[in-house]
């Protein structure tokens, strides 16, 4: 197998004495959609924040195409081809949708200096995600579904090799979710690798090639979606031990 696009080795994050993520290792192969699931507080977002440079890891290493990028700041990670979307959308509200994406075109891996060229690139990306009809609307005035798309369009306009999507379907209705998952599939077919965190297990199982389950900050299981679904440890983490008194409660570690 070729060198993975991202290698994570024993990544650990402590908040005070509490390990939010502990000794998590994995490798993301190129052009995969690599999913992460786990109960609330399992450490999915913390893991993402470390990879995207928003949080400094307490220990461990992150390598992008063999290059160590542990502790790099977000803006330099973007230049190395790692972009992210946020669970809670954060558009530049006083800018138009087009201008939002234009910023990404300017400062992403393409590093476009000319304004007109950046706008052109932004328009293409907007058309690609199906948001071109909103190009001149203020970002504050579009629906949540469109804001999620804008979040994705901005990340894409930085021309990433690896895209980190944090709950991109959160708050969307089933129809919008379906459309968003189709979009993720198209992004992958376009050559971008995706790491995908989602609460909705069905959504993850539908698009991912490979899934990792986190529980209490540690890797519980990983494998193909169908393997994960039948893994007894996973079922236990989500539903509790068969025969335990409170169904649905989490096992005591």
């Amino acid at each position, binding site marked *: 197998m070729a060198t993975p696009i991202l290698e994570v080795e024993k990544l650990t994050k402590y908040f005070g004495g509490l390990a939010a993520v502990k000794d998590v290792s994995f490798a993301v192969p190129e052009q995969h959609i690599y999913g992460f699931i786990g109960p609330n507080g399992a450490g999915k977002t913390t893991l993402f924040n470390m990879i*995207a440079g*928003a949080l400094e890891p307490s220990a461990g290493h992150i390598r992008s195409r063999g290059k160590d990028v542990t502790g790099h*700041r*977000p*803006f*330099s990670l*973007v*230049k190395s081809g790692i*972009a*992210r979307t*946020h669970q809670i959308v*954060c*558009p*530049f*509200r*006083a*800018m138009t949708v087009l*201008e939002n994406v*234009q*910023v*990404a075109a*300017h*400062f*992403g*891996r393409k590093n*476009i*200096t*000319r*304004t*007109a060229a*950046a706008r052109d690139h932004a*328009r293409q990306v907007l058309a690609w995600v199906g948001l*071109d009809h909103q*190009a001149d609307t203020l970002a504050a005035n579009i629906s949540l579904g469109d804001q999620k798309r804008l979040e994705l369009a*901005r*990340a894409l*306009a*930085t021309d990433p090799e690896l895209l980190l999507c944090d709950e991109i379907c959160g708050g969307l209705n089933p129809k919008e979710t379906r459309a968003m998952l189709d979009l993720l599939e198209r992004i992958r077919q376009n050559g971008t690798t995706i790491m995908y965190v989602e609460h909705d297990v069905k959504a993850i199982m539908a698009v991912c090639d490979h899934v990792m389950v986190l529980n209490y900050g540690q890797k519980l299981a990983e494998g193909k979606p169908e393997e994960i679904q039948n893994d007894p440890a996973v079922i236990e983490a989500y539903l509790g031990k068969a025969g335990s008194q409170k169904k649905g409660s989490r096992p005591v570690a």
Partner: protein
Amino acid sequence: MTTAVFAPSRLEARARLVLPGLLLVVLALLPTAGLTPNLIRLLFITFVWVTASLGWNLLGGFTGQVSFGFAVFYGLGAYTAALMIDRGVNPYLSFLGAALIPALASFFIGLPTFRLRGPYFAIATIGVSEATRVIMNNLAITGGASGFRIVEHRPFRQVDHYYTALAMAALAVAVSFLIQHSKFGMGLRAIKQDEEAAADLGVNPYAYKLAIHAVAAALTGMAGGVFARYAAFIYPQGVFSFQTSVYILLMPVIGGIGTVWGAVLGGVVFGMVEEQLVANFPQIHLLLYGSLLILIILAEPDGLAGLLGKLFRRLRTPR
């Protein structure tokens, strides 16, 4: 439809140059129209204020970093020009120094203070500003608190000062527009709205803030230098005072924060009104500013420029 947007916008950009160009020509011809020296002086002061206002607007308006410390740059510019002219350096060269030294100082101020956000940054700039004033009050080579008299061994010609200040203000307008319509300007706008989101898209907020701080300091310092040469006497309680910082911040807020013409308008209104207020209401002129500030923030956060824009649109659209 999307491709058609480009052609008219370029035409529009040309048209946008016509009005400022015309304004510049009129202002350049004004001294030949037999203005009184007092009026020329008033216009000179106005150009100086406009430049400082535009300088502050780059950091405060474009980038959203509210600084109460621009008197540091204004004062350093004034003193740099004063010391250079005093040592026989060509005054126009000294204005370059008046831009460079404050720009350099802006890094020393920005490196620690830009680690702070929002109100904490604003408060820190007050501290830096006051500390600088105290140091300048006690510095021997500048004459300390008793001030510094600039002796220039050449005849005083008022129109020279007028044209210098006009050229400087025009430069500040040009720099502002160039930045606004550039990649750099887009990065600043992004930082103003959401620093984290900007960083996630590849903008380095810290570096960008330091860079625009330096440009803003250079323009403000140059304004201080040009003023110093005209005034021929400067002292720390004047150019380095907290009041100077407040004045520089007040202008873009009055005129319309974040827009180039708003900052210009604020400078013009301030330049024209300030002296009258000080002369006619020496006890309460600051009270009047304060009231004006509150009124504007409450009623029209986009300043006078925003108000004029609204009026204009209302007149254009027939009911």
